[in-house]
């Protein structure tokens, strides 16, 4: 049911430019109990199950948090991020406090409302190609800080409990946990302790484990391990009574620097996507329409208030951090919703007895609507506000654009790829390397290369290696079939990339040329010719002449290859050996024809001598 609705509504939503997130939400609303009633009470169960998608997302966000990237964005993360969270939390907290909530409740709601939706915003910015603009980078920084801020929030929430915990509302964490019954301060301590222990265990245990599994070379096992890590941490954290999302996030950060980052990312990604989709559907399904219908103006009022206050705070901060007007509007409106964390935090707040059920229901509706409105707000901003605000065209400042993606990706760091890589590196061209041999990966990383473990023919891995931003991809992996596979992947998903492909021999080269490759490099061609040059030189040929002959030969052979690739009939079956001999015969014949006259006629004075002689004889 869930999957069917997703398949139906997500493409529809995308068609109307609303983005996949909104599609999931709409799907959820429609199949939910209040429209079609196709799913009822089990929606809640699905939601808890799908929360695992959020856990995975946090793990992935953790993985993205490379210390280097953090350092580069440090100013906007810490400055912009913290100010946004604190200011927004205080304003909302104050607002709710004065509208009659207890201060603990007001603070909890304020903190939750200060967060924005990583899933929606990142997806939107990526779809609109805004990630590399100043607004995109600022949004990313703020979201990053918010993701981190969730940790102390989760830690602080137990301290804010004012209501007695109603066990009936406690769905997810029904199992008794170690922290139950502990005083608030002890719970807080346990949170900090667990986080620390995950860091230590991740460092000491997980990396060697990944290495061992990677060495087996079986992809499924690696996927299983990746899932196990996430699930295991989630289970462990639940047992301790903590947010599984938090644990996953920390584990992600711990593994962010490991060479298996990209592989982990691409393994978890599809699961995350699906579960997150389910999560959004579940959110849609659980919006309490009777509640909204019973007090529509309250809900609508809150949504607008929420968006306007958030946007105003962001606008102010954008101004302080010197964003241009255009960028500032994009930045502010994109972050003006409340994020998916709100669902987690609200249900957590419910369990912890901070907020009563009806408040939570109302808030979840408000949050869901604010999320749903975001794509529409961005659209309005683009069509109506931006053209007015930006009377003069604001020039892009390339300096502010932070681009850590490399222009070159080299797949396969064996004997072939590493020479290319070393050459590029010696000339200060930064490249991202992908390799399947975990030992190679280890060694090279120690030497400071940016090498990642993984199967380079998988489009997810290429994606996370920055294939959409790169200019050139060098396919230097060893297995010919894998290379063809990779060519197809790149052609399909990254048609903008220039492909330079290694070929083992002529036949390999034919296959690649028939696959449309223009830049094919036969492993042995240049080397054998160099050997031929040396042989000629040793036999007394002039070095420069031998060199010119070899170059000429190379060009001639390449031309020949193209011709033969075009006339070759792949259907025709001839034994490899016979084919080889026949072809060599043909090639040698054309060699003779092309070289009969010899190269560089201009340096041959013979015709001049002839002419001089004939003129002499005429004169006499």
């Amino acid at each position, binding site marked *: 049911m869930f999957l069917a609705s997703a398949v139906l509504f997500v493409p529809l939503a995308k068609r109307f430019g609303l983005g996949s997130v909104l599609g999931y939400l709409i799907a959820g609303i429609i199949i939910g109990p209040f429209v079609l009633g196709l799913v009822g009470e089990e929606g809640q169960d699905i939601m808890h199950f799908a929360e695992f998608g959020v856990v995975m997302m946090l793990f992935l966000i953790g993985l993205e948090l490379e210390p280097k990237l953090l350092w580069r964005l440090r100013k906007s993360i810490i400055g912009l991020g913290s100010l946004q969270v604190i200011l927004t939390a205080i304003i909302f907290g104050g607002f709710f406090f004065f509208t009659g909530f207890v201060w603990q409740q007001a603070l909890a709601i304020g903190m939750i409302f200060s967060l924005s939706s990583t899933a929606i915003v990142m997806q939107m910015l990526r779809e609109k190609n805004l990630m590399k603009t100043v607004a995109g980078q600022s949004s990313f920084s703020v979201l990053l800080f918010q993701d981190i801020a969730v940790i102390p929030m989760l830690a602080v929430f137990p301290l804010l409990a004012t209501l007695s915990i109603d066990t009936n509302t406690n769905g997810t964490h029904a199992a008794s946990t170690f922290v139950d019954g502990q005083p608030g301060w002890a719970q807080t301590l346990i949170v900090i302790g667990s986080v620390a222990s995950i860091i230590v265990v991740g460092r000491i245990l997980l990396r060697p484990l990944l290495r061992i599994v990677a060495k087996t070379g079986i992809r499924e096992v690696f996927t299983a391990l990746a899932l196990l890590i996430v699930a295991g941490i989630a289970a462990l954290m639940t047992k301790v009574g903590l947010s599984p999302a938090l644990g996953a996030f920390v584990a992600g950060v711990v593994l962010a620097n490991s060479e298996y980052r990209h592989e982990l990312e691409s393994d978890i990604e599809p699961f995350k996507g699906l579960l997150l989709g389910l999560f959004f559907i579940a959110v849609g399904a659980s919006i309490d329409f009777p509640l909204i219908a019973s007090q529509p103006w309250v809900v609508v009022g809150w949504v607008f208030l929420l968006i306007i206050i958030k946007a105003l705070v962001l606008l102010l901060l954008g101004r302080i951090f010197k964003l241009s007007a255009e960028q500032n509007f994009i930045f502010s409106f994109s972050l003006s919703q409340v994020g998916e964390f709100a669902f987690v935090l609200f249900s957590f707040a419910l369990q912890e007895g901070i907020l009563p059920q009806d408040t939570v229901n109302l808030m979840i509706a408000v949050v869901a609507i604010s999320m749903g409105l975001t794509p529409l707000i961005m659209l309005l901003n683009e069509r109506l506000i931006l053209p007015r605000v930006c009377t003069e065209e604001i020039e892009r400042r390339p300096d502010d654009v932070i681009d850590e993606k490399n222009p070159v990706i080299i797949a396969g760091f064996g004997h072939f790829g590493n020479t290319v890589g070393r050459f590029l590196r010696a000339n200060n061209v930064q490249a991202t390397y992908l390799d399947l041999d975990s030992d190679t990966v280890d060694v090279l990383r120690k030497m400071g290369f940016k090498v990642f473990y993984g199967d380079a023919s998988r489009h997810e891995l290429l994606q996370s290696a920055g294939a959409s931003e790169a200019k050139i991809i060098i396919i230097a992996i060893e297995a010919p079939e894998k290379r063809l596979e990779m060519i197809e992947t790149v052609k399909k998903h990254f048609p903008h990339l220039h492909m330079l492909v290694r070929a083992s021999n002529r036949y390999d080269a034919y296959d690649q040329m028939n696959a449309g490759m223009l830049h094919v490099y036969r492993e042995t061609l240049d080397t054998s010719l160099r050997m031929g040059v040396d042989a000629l030189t040793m036999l007394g040929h*002039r*070095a*420069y*002449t031998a060199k010119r002959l070899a170059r000429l030969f190379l060009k001639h052979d390449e031309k020949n290859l193209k011709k033969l690739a075009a006339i070759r009939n792949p259907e025709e079956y001839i034994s490899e050996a016979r084919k080889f001999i026949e072809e060599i015969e043909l090639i040698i014949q054309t060699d003779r024809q092309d070289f009969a006259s010899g190269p560089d006629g201009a*340096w*041959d004075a013979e015709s001049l001598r002839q*002419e*001089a002689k004939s003129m002499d004889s005429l004169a006499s």
Partner: protein
Amino acid sequence: MSRILVLFAHPALERSRVQHSLLKAIAALPDVLINDLYENYPDFDIDVKREKKLLLAHDIIIWQHPFYWYSSPALLKQWQDLVLEHGWAYGKNGTALAGKKIFNVFTSGGSSKAYRNGGYNKYPVQEYLKPFEQTANLCGMTYWPPFWVPGVHRMEISQIDQYSLRYRELLIGLRDEQIPEEEILKLSFFNHLFPVNTIE
């Protein structure tokens, strides 16, 4: 005694009669070093450090080459472009080569008659050597008169041999400093000191 460095440039020596013979004539001379550029740098990537060292170690430099389109083959130009660096060979602090002697030894298809005002090639051959001369001047070197082997296309073997012999004598004379510089500077060609019987 002077040490002589011959910077030799011919891209297809195996097809040349005269250059081949000239080179052979001076090959075994003590204190004459032949730097065969096309043989040493078939890829055109000249080892500038090595070339500088060679220049410093010699007193007389010779550009020996066929005359291609009124100039030298490409690699000799590349040699000039790369080796004669600013701050080393020329410029305010570029005095490494100051005081050294340099001249061209070149062969041409055109005869000496062709290189006259109004002749087949319109100007005297020295006009075409001006870029070499000025290069030498800028580097503080003394540009000596050239040794020229004209009309190579219709040259008989006996004549080629004579030229080769004269060339050898010239280098020996210069090496052993038997020719006073005042006399050299008065010459328009070294050929005048080492004449070859021409058939003309």
